[in-house]
């Protein structure tokens, strides 16, 4: 009788542990998917905000004889805004990393359980470029962060990312450990069927100096819109 009772208790416990693990796998998968998607969405928002800040000071700049030129009264504010944006870039990167943590924790997973298996897509991916700015009546200045170069090569694909969430489920005499993987990408979301976009879109940020201008116009970023998509 004692053995039967003990066997029943063990079977009951095992059954309960298996059910808890079954529920846990689903929760871990949601946490992985949503944490990654959240981080990529925040990256997309950050890129759009950076582009907006850049456009605010870069609009009066034109290309003259292969060099950048701006009206003299605007040069001090352009220089100040460019430097401020360059200094703000690490903050935008921190926001992406923090989004991953906040979303994982909101979905019931501790940050220490999250491993970045492919972190390329989770980097802001912008590099501030120093360039010369000339103006009539003023000496030519070297300005940090005058334009920003994207570090991803394909304009349409701002990067893939993958994470894995480790989940421990208690069982009789120990714990089952399993991991929930998630993959996602941040894509350029401009309408590439649009004639204007197809003609001079550059992924929102230029990959090099050549693609930072259109004829005499200095237009380093064109159509900076992004969308994060989960991948199977």
């Amino acid at each position: 009788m004692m053995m039967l009772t003990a066997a029943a208790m063990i079977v009951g416990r095992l059954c309960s542990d298996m059910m808890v693990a079954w529920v846990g796998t689903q929760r871990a998968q949601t946490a992985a998917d949503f944490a990654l998607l959240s981080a990529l969405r925040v990256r997309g928002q950050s890129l759009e905000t950076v582009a907006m800040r850049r456009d605010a000071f870069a609009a009066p700049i034109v290309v003259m004889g292969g060099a950048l030129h701006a009206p003299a009264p605007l040069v001090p504010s352009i220089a100040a805004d460019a430097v401020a944006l360059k200094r703000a870039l690490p903050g935008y990167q921190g926001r992406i990393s923090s989004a991953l943590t906040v979303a994982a924790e909101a979905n019931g997973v501790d940050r220490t359980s999250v491993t970045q298996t492919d972190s390329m897509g989770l980097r802001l991916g912008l590099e501030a470029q120093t360039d010369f700015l000339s103006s009539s009546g003023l000496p030519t200045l070297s300005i940090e962060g005058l334009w920003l170069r994207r570090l991803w090569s394909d304009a349409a694909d701002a990067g893939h990312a993958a994470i894995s969430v480790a989940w421990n489920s208690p069982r009789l005499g120990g714990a089952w450990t399993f991991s929930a993987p998630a993959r996602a990408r941040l894509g350029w979301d401009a309408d590439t069927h649009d004639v204007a976009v197809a003609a001079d879109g550059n992924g929102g940020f230029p990959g090099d100096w050549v693609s930072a201008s259109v004829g005499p116009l200095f237009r380093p970023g064109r159509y900076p819109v992004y969308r994060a998509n989960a991948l199977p």
Partner: protein
Amino acid sequence: MRRAIRGSAMVETALSCLIASALLSGSLYIGKTALASRRSHALARHAAALKAAGVPLGLIDVEMSDYSARLGGGMVWTLGRYDRSAAARFYRLTEAVVTADVAVPPIAGGGSRRLTSRAVVEEDRP
């Protein structure tokens, strides 16, 4: 002597039946709870994804009613902004909370147990 042995066997059989029925009842309850938990979580995940993608609330309610009905019904959901942690206030996190009541068998005290599932994701276009 024979009567005593027969009596003891009957007691053992009765106890075995009792343990077996308790085990069966407990297993069924655990299974039902796990199933309800998974279903409510699936619903929460679905709702959070729809809301974060910018689907209008009316449409989400229709979709959720349909999905809930297909999963067996009896679930209640709320949608809102997640701001339970200080850091979360710097983001636009959409939260979907789904509750489901699971009946507890009389052998375990009866009544019902409320399960809560939450899914949180950043909005696509704030």
